[in-house]
C-alpha cells in the first residue's frame, strides 16, 4: 500500500510534465485545428534557455545564495524562450500555410521540429562562425565580443548533454514512511498553479474570450472585430510558455537536457491531449495525469519494460470506447 502511494506520487510528477506540455497541443488544435508537432521541441528550447540562465546565475553565485530566486528567474527565462520560439514558428512555418492543405502544415511542423533540434545542436558551430566573420584583415567583432559570442553559444547548446546544477537536491519530507522530495512537491505545485492561471485566463479575460471565439468559428470571430492573427499568436505564446516551464522543471528535476529530449515527452503529451479530448483544456490536464498514473501503476504490477505498452494499450482501448477523448465533444470540432 505504501509503495502504491509512492508510485502514485511518481505518477503525478510525470503527469504534471505531460499535462503542461499537452496544454500546448490542445490549445493550438483548439484555435487552428492543427497538430503542432514541433511542440516537443519548443519544450526543449525552453529547457535550454533555462539551463543557460541558471548556469549564468550559478556563475554569479545566485544559485547558492538564493536558490528560490534563481529557480524563478530560470522558469521565467525558459517560459519566454519557448514562447518567443513558438510565436516565431507560428509566424514563419504555419501562418503562410494557413489556407493550404492540412498535410502541408503537418509536414511543415515536422520540418520545424527537426530544424529546432539541429539548431540547438549546432548553436556553438554558428557561434564560432559568426565570431570569425572578417573582411580582409578586419574582424567584424572586436576580440572580446568574439570570445563572448563563442562562450555564450557554447554554454547554450551543442551536441553534448547539458547539465543543470543540482539545486533541488534529493531531500524531502517523510509522511508515514513515504519520502516525498521537495523537488516533486515543487513540480506538482508549479504545474497546478500554472494550470489554474491558464484556466482563469481562458475563462475570465477578454483575450480568453477571444480565443474561445476563434476556436468556435474563426471567420465569424473575425467579422466581430477580433484580430484573429493576434489571438493565434497569443495562443502560441501561452501554450509554448507552459511547455517552457515544463522544460525548465524537467531540467531541474532530471538534471540532463539534450537536443532530442523533446521527442518522447512530446509524443506522450500529444497522446495525453488526444485522450483527454484534443482542443479541450481540462481534458489535456486530465489526460496528462492519467497517462502518468497508468505508467507507474503498470510498473507496480508488471515488469518495468511493459510500461509504455500498457500505457498505450489502455489509451487505445479508451479511444475505441470514446473516440473524441474523455472530455472532447462530439463532432470533432474543438472548443477551448
Amino acid at each position, binding site marked *: 500500500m505504501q*509503495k502504491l502511494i*509512492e*508510485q502514485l506520487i*511518481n*505518477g503525478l*510528477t*510525470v503527469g504534471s510534465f505531460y499535462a503542461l506540455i499537452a496544454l500546448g497541443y490542445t490549445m493550438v488544435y483548439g484555435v487552428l485545428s492543427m497538430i503542432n508537432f514541433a511542440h516537443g521541441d519548443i519544450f526543449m528550447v525552453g529547457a535550454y534557455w533555462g539551463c543557460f540562465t541558471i548556469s549564468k546565475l550559478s556563475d554569479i553565485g545566485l544559485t547558492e545564495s538564493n536558490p528560490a530566486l534563481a529557480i524563478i528567474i530560470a522558469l521565467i527565462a525558459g517560459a519566454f524562450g519557448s514562447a518567443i520560439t513558438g510565436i516565431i514558428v507560428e509566424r514563419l512555418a504555419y501562418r503562410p500555410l494557413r489556407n493550404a492543405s492540412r498535410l502541408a502544415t503537418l509536414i511543415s511542423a515536422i520540418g520545424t521540429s527537426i530544424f529546432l533540434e539541429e539548431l540547438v*545542436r549546432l548553436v556553438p558551430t554558428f557561434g564560432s562562425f559568426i565570431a570569425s566573420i572578417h573582411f580582409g584583415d578586419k574582424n567584424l567583432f572586436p576580440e572580446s565580443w568574439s570570445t563572448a559570442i563563442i562562450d555564450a553559444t557554447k554554454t547554450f547548446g551543442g*551536441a*553534448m*548533454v547539458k*547539465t*543543470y*546544477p*543540482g539545486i*533541488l*537536491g*534529493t531531500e*524531502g519530507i517523510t509522511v508515514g514512511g513515504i*519520502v516525498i*522530495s521537495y*523537488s516533486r512537491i515543487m513540480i506538482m505545485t508549479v504545474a497546478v498553479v500554472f494550470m489554474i492561471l491558464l484556466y482563469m485566463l481562458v475563462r475570465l479575460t477578454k483575450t480568453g474570450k477571444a480565443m474561445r471565439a476563434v476556436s468556435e468559428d474563426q471567420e465569424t470571430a473575425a467579422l466581430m472585430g477580433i484580430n484573429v492573427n493576434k489571438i493565434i499568436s497569443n495562443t502560441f505564446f501561452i501554450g509554448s510558455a507552459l511547455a517552457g516551464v515544463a522544460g525548465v522543471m*524537467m531540467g531541474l528535476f*532530471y*538534471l*540532463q537536457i*539534450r*537536443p*532530442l*529530449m523533446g521527442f*518522447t515527452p512530446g509524443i506522450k503529451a500529444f497522446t495525453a491531449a488526444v485522450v483527454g479530448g484534443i482542443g479541450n483544456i481540462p481534458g489535456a490536464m486530465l489526460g496528462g495525469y492519467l497517462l502518468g498514473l497508468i*505508467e*507507474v501503476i503498470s*510498473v*507496480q504490477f508488471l*515488469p*518495468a*519494460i511493459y*510500461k*509504455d505498452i500498457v500505457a498505450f494499450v489502455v489509451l487505445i482501448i479508451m479511444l475505441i470506447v470514446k473516440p473524441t477523448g474523455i472530455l472532447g465533444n462530439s463532432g470533432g470540432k474543438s472548443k477551448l
Partner: protein
Amino acid sequence: MSKRYVFISVLTITTLLLAACGSSAAATEEAAAPAADAEAAAEDEWGYITVPAGEKVVLGLSSALSAGYAAYGQDMLNGATVAVQDFGDLNGWEIEVEGGDDQCEGAPGVTVAEQFAANPYMVGVVGPMCSGTAIPAMDIYGEHHVIMITPSSTAIPVTAAGYENVFRIVANDDLQAEVAVDYMFNELGVTTLGIVNDQSIYGQGIAEAVQTKFEAAGGTVTGFEGITRGDQDFSAVVSTILEGEPEAIYWGGMDAEGALLVNQLRAAGFEGVYFGPDGIKSIPSFVEASGGAAEGAYMTFGAVGGATGYEEFLENFSAQFGDPIAYGPGSYDAAMIILNAAKAVATVDSDGNLVIPKKALADMIRATPFDGITGHLEFDENGDLKVVSITVFQAQGNELVPMKVYDFGQ
C-alpha cells in the same frame, strides 16, 4: 471491386520486388567479376588499399558524436586525433582522422560502416564505441576486410563472429561482471542485489552476467528491471527495485541514464552501494550529471592508461582537449596499432602510390604485440587481448579513484 484492387496491387508489388531483386543480384555479379580478377592478379587475398600521391590516408573513427553519449564519443575522437599527430606521416602520406557519428546505435553505425568501407583510402577503423553498434557494423567491416579495432565495445559477442580483421583492446563484459561481483561480494560484503539495465546488447548482457555470477557466488538478486535508453523518469522502476530492499544496486548501461538512476535512487531514500560497468566511467556526464548523487558509486573499467608513454600522451591530450574521460587513451592505442602495422606492411609501387595489403595488415596486427599507453596489448586468435586488467573505481568528490586492480590471463 476492392478485392480485385487489392489483388492487382499485391501482384504489382510482388512483380516489382522480384524485378528489383533480380536486377540487384545481376548488378552484384557484374561488380564482383572485375574485383575477382583484380584479386586473382594480386598476391594479397583481400586486396589492397591504394593511396595515390597527394591524397591522404584516412583513419576512421566510429563513435557517438552527438546526443546522450557524445562525451565518450568525443573523447575517443580526441584520442585518435592525438595518435595521428604523434604518429606523423605514413611513408610520406598525410593521415587524417574521419569521425563517423554512430549515435551508439545499430542502424546509424551500419551507415557509418558502409561509408567507411566505401572509402578507398580507409586504412582502418577505431571503434565502434558501443557493442550494440559493433555487432551489426562488424559484418560490414568483415565483408569489406576493413580493419576494426574497438577500444570500448565490451559485449562478449563482439569478437565471437570469427572475423580476422576485428579486434578488441579491452576486457569483455564477462570479466567485468566477474570483477563487479567479486568486489561487491568479497570487499563490500553485499549479499542482496537489485539489478537495473537499459535493455541494450551491452547493458542487458552485462546485467545478466552479473545476475548469474552473483547468484553463483551465493548472493540473492532481489529484482531485475529494465528501462529504456533516452528515458528520464525511472521513479517507477526505482520504487519497484527498492521494494526488495537490496543492499546494492547494479546498473547495466551508460552514463546518461546511470546518472539519472542514481539520482532518483538517492532521492527515494536508497543508501546502499551503487555499482556500474565501464559505461558510467565518465567525469562530466556521470558524476556531474547525477547532481552529487554519484558520490561513492563504484564502476569497473578496463582500459586504464598509465603504461609507458602515458604521461607524454596526457600532456599532449590535455593541452588540446582537457582531461581524457574514459576511452581516449584506448582509442589512441587502437589508432597506433593500426598505423604502426600499416607502416610495417606498406610499400610504394612503381606509379608512386602507397599500397597497403589488407590481409597482411590484419595478420601483422594479430602477430605483433604492442606496448601502448594502456598496457601490453597482445591478441589471441579471436582478436581479444591475451592479458587484460580491470580496475574498480569509486567516485569521490569530483574524481574517480582507483580502488583495486584485477589481472586476467597472466
